[in-house]
């Protein structure tokens, strides 16, 4: 295999994805360095979720390269399971938890562990695992709801649970699609704090429309538009960019 000399954790180059001729991503290229946190903004339909789909193996790009860990893994050749096993976790735009399972079981299923059939058949709970689940409960503040079925949670609680599941997976790279949709201002602020905390040890990509939240994060921002990068830089640089104001912020 061709060797890719890049220091990036995630490397996207010339990614194109078309749906019936419509280009959801159009030669999209950007890099994420290890340990970075990046905010992705852009108008509806800009291709933000599609970008996450490409990285996590849900959608195959029609053209372009997606590499993980300094070019070691070609993500366009792997499926969702392999990519998750490499340490890439995602939170969905529409919170997606296992409705029929309890909150605790949702975390248990997400917990970093041997995922093979034999391992889950013979699985026994252990103290370190239970402790880890307690830690996550402390972080996401859902302890009192632990034996409720996840389907009965509110939208905001599901968002938190899904963030908890993402933490439980202990991925190297987190792709977080609109985490604060449906949250109160206070919860939004807490989420920003939590993501910053997570970013101390992990690389994070956050897609979000809430500009106050993005400002709170205080990280490098990439604005997508019609499937390509429109602008990239600090929040101030990007929000003063004329094109960004025109297509997104100024609406």
């Amino acid at each position, binding site marked *: 295999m061709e060797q890719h000399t890049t220091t990036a954790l995630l490397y996207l180059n010339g990614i194109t994805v078309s749906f019936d001729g419509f280009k959801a991503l159009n030669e999209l290229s950007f890099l994420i360095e290890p340990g970075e946190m990046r905010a992705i903004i852009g108008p509806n339909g800009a291709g933000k979720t599609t970008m996450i789909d490409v990285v996590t193996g849900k959608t195959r790009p029609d053209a372009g390269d997606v590499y993980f860990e300094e070019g070691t893994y070609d993500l366009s050749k792997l499926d969702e*399971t392999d990519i998750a096993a490499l340490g890439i976790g995602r939170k969905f735009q529409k919170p997606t938890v296992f409705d*029929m*399972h309890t909150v605790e079981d949702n975390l248990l299923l997400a917990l970093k562990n041997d995922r093979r059939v034999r391992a889950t058949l013979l699985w026994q709970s252990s103290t370190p695992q239970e402790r880890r689940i307690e830690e996550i409960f402390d972080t996401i503040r859902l302890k009192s709801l632990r034996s409720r079925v996840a389907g009965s949670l509110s939208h905001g609680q599901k968002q938190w649970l899904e963030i908890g599941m993402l933490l439980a997976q202990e991925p190297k790279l987190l792709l977080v699609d609109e985490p604060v949709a449906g949250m109160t201002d206070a919860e939004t602020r807490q989420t920003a704090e939590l993501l910053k905390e997570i970013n101390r040890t992990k690389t994070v990509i956050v897609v979000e429309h809430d500009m106050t939240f993005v400002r709170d994060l205080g990280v490098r921002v990439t604005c997508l538009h019609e499937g390509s990068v429109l602008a990239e830089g600090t929040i101030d640089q990007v929000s003063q960019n004329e094109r960004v104001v025109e297509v997104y912020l100024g609406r």
Partner: protein
Amino acid sequence: MTAHPLIRMLDRGAVLFLALLGAFAIAIPVLNLLVPEGSALHVSTYLVALFGKYVCYGILALSIDLIWGYAGILSLGHGAFFALGGYAMGMYLMRQIGTRGVYANPILPDFMVFLNWKELPVYWYGFQYFPYAALMVMLVPGALAFVFGWFAFRSRVTGVYLSIITQAMTFALMLGFFRNNFGFGGNNGLTDFKDILGFNVQAEGTRNALLVVSCLALAIGFLICRAIVTSKFGKVLVAIRDAEARTRFLGYRVEAYKLFVFTLSACMAGVAGALYVPQVGIINPSEFAPGNSIEAVIWVAVGGRGTLTGAVLGAFVVNYAKTFFTSGVLAPYWLFMLGGLFIAVTLLLPRGVIGTYNHWRDGRGEARAAGVPNAPPHAAK
């Protein structure tokens, strides 16, 4: 979550089920063999065989519930695995006939002599040995399910498409087994069995023994299913059932999970078929009929999908109704009644009998915990 696996596995419902099954397995032979024929309590040998048949249907229903109720795989071809297990047992029983057949050929079954075959086909080799036949009872359905599932699950065939190809599978097998040159007795199938492990299959004692063995197989099958659905593996299955894509993104290899339970379930169905054949005395290609597989799914729906005990209950109740109605003046209308039952359950009792009961009980439990007396159960979503 800290409960010991055995405690998790044997909850109150499971213990009750096993107790009832045990009582049934003891009571029926006692009432048949020890209570004199004139007594009102006597159970006829005809009923013993009939109940034995229901127990086999119960095992089949259990195998369907494991994949449909927990993993969301709706197989409309499980009758094929049942029939294959039945044929494997039938082949053993045929070879036990020996020189007692009409043509008195020590090796070849009658239908082969009739077709002027000179030699036993290779795939009939070994079936005179019970252990080999017993192995094949599980191995053949299991292997077919493995190959079928390997292709289907890897290509991510799900939902209605999967159901349709399972129907096609059982239909294709039916057409094959109807052919004389397939070597399984064509449309007559395998019948006129004499004995099993040296005991006359028609004898009262054998019939009772077969009933008890079938109950034992049902109990073991039930315990295996309980162990699976209460393990973490079982939680992954439910996750796959409810949100397959999400499960993949968590890093679970969904196709491996499906393949494992599908194959296991086919082996169970094979055992059910193998126990069924000596009790009804015949196995023929009509056992592969697509309608049979659909009927079995209806039993599970009626009793309650994803409850295990409900599947067995459904198999008993629907088949008892079938026996009752098809022997009376209502016989021509049975299929309409079955169809009507399915529609009624789907519309009025979508969780099935046991599922509805469990839901009602859980709802009451939660209400009590919350200090609300007699709160209504949660509205169905």
